[in-house]
């Protein structure tokens, strides 16, 4: 019996090492430096202060928070609207086709996301493919502004994060009992009603899981606002990056990061309040 326990521990060691060395320690370090003071030469002065946290609540930075939350929220919403029909359509296909289609969803991950963003640049810009085609067939007379604005940012965000919504939603929709759907249709429920009364409640864990996986990174993907937003929009990711680079204010950047972690915790807390289970967030299916 005892040797079994030792073995169990042995297999846990890599995970424990990974979590402590690569997640817990860096986070603690960030927490630690968020209470220090910057010397504005790229270094830090070791004296305890909570000034950084007071600064975060300056109206300027609060509005960056709100703007980021708005962009991340809209991104999440669009992802939900695209993913549900997609996942529903896929779930009626043969298992083999399902597998192929889901693999295709993941194919873009094989390329670096920065390169994919530059790909969008070629499509969306004034002299880009989409505008050229539309101009060529006479649908528009002036090139459309498809990027360097909020639209461009949303295209980039939705495109990058969509798989994170589709995957959990797909795994939870495949657990919906078909007999329930048949019963609903036998009892005369409209498709609409079936969707909202049966499918949505049953896929709620997947929906929450997907929403968190889309919403959280959308707050921080600064390369998307930089490239497709033309650097005109500042989201939390840009703000944090600027603190570490241009402003040379690491403690303040750390404080913003910690507040961002807390915001994420609030959303997870809300999720649990609404009846979500932590196990569902693990992506187990």
């Amino acid at each position, binding site marked *: 019996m005892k040797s079994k326990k030792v073995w169990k521990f042995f297999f846990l060691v890599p995970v424990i090492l990974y979590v402590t060395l690569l997640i817990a320690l860096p986070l603690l370090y960030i927490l630690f430096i968020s209470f220090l003071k910057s010397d504005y030469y790229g270094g830090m002065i070791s004296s305890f202060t909570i000034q950084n946290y007071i600064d975060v609540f300056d109206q300027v930075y609060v509005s960056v928070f709100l703007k980021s939350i708005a962009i991340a929220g809209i991104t999440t919403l669009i992802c939900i609207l695209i993913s549900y029909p997609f996942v529903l359509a896929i779930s009626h296909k043969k298992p083999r086709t399902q597998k192929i289609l889901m693999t295709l969803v993941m194919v873009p991950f094989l390329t670096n996301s920065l390169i994919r963003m530059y790909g969008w640049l070629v499509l969306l810009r004034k002299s880009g493919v989409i505008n050229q085609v539309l101009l060529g067939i006479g649908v528009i007379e002036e090139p459309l502004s498809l990027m360097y604005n909020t639209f461009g940012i949303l295209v980039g965000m939705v495109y990058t994060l969509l798989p994170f919504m589709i995957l959990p939603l797909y795994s939870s929709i495949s657990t919906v009992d078909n007999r329930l759907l048949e019963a609903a249709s036998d009892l005369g429920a409209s498709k609409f009603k079936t969707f909202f009364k049966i499918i949505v409640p049953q896929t709620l864990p997947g929906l929450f899981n997907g929403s968190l996986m889309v919403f959280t990174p959308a707050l921080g993907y600064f390369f998307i606002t930089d490239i497709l937003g033309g650097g005109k929009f500042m989201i939390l990711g840009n703000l944090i*990056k600027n603190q570490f680079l241009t402003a040379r204010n690491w403690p303040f950047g750390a404080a913003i990061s910690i507040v961002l972690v807390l915001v994420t915790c609030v959303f997870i807390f809300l999720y649990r309040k609404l009846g979500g289970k932590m196990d569902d967030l693990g992506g187990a299916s």
Partner: protein
Amino acid sequence: MKSGIRFGSLFLISFFLLFLCSGCSSDDVGVVNVLNWSSYIPDSVIRDFEQETGIQVNYSTYSSNEECLAKVSSAKEGTYDLIFPSDYMIEIMIYRNMLEKFDYSKLQNEGNIDSFYLNQSFDPGNQYSLPFVMASTVIAVNREHISDEIRSYSDLLNDKYRNNITLIDDQRIIIGMALLANGYDMNTVDESELNVAKEWLLQLKPNIKAFDSDSPKNFLITEEADIAVLWNAEAALAYQEMGNIEFIYPEEGTALSMDNFAIPKGARHREEAYQFIDYILREDVMKEIIESYPYKNVNWKTQKLLDSNYLDNIASNIPSYIIEQGIYVENIGESVKLYDKLWAEIK
């Protein structure tokens, strides 16, 4: 030239490289680790140096002074042998005791540098640095689409240019531009003056298509925008590509930047670093560099070799009266906070 979109990935890569380097023997002779701006020295120059001297060059790049500072200060001492920080960053690095003093007995070609560019306020007596090239901001206008006279920054406020201007993504330069437009010092730390600059930028904002430092010239070349405030060499390259671009040095003044050779504290291959500097300072080598990346040349021997393509173009060969009235970004210490906040407000 600047900004750090790629910082994240570069950071990761440098992390891996660090591991790689700590794996190989550390005191190997015949190696020099150079950390330079991206798009500053053509590959052919590096290869020729390697061939001529037998020294292997490990070359990595950064895209802002702050990225350079972060890389040098977070890496193990001795990781880099030669870096190219700008004026105010030299000052910061000297303050943080991050640079080695130059040993001039190891150099032969330092006399090629025009003395006009030596002995600057950020490093009096050039104890820690030697100028490499100089840059200035310039307004570039696509004359095929825009015919109005543009002479000053304030002319950019014209609402005819809606969504048609691209700016460098650099808070000190762009806020500095707004300060100059209003007749203030580009390095001011006065809050009320900065407030005026903020209002000016908010007024300009509808005209701004994008902030980009990686390749602002592409906005001109792809005709995405017809006006750009960008670094002189970028403007000159856009001109080479498409012609019909006018360069304007605004009457309110321009921002200058001087990039310098510097050797970080604890560099392990100092001899090789000096050899590399000496090689770059050679007039024919500098000519090749300047012809690829037409920044302002500071080497008087090279200046005699350059042709009229370079010399007659005011974007590459910045006129000396512009340099005399140009202003360097200065280290403003804690007040950088004010600029950062203002930047968040206008974005």
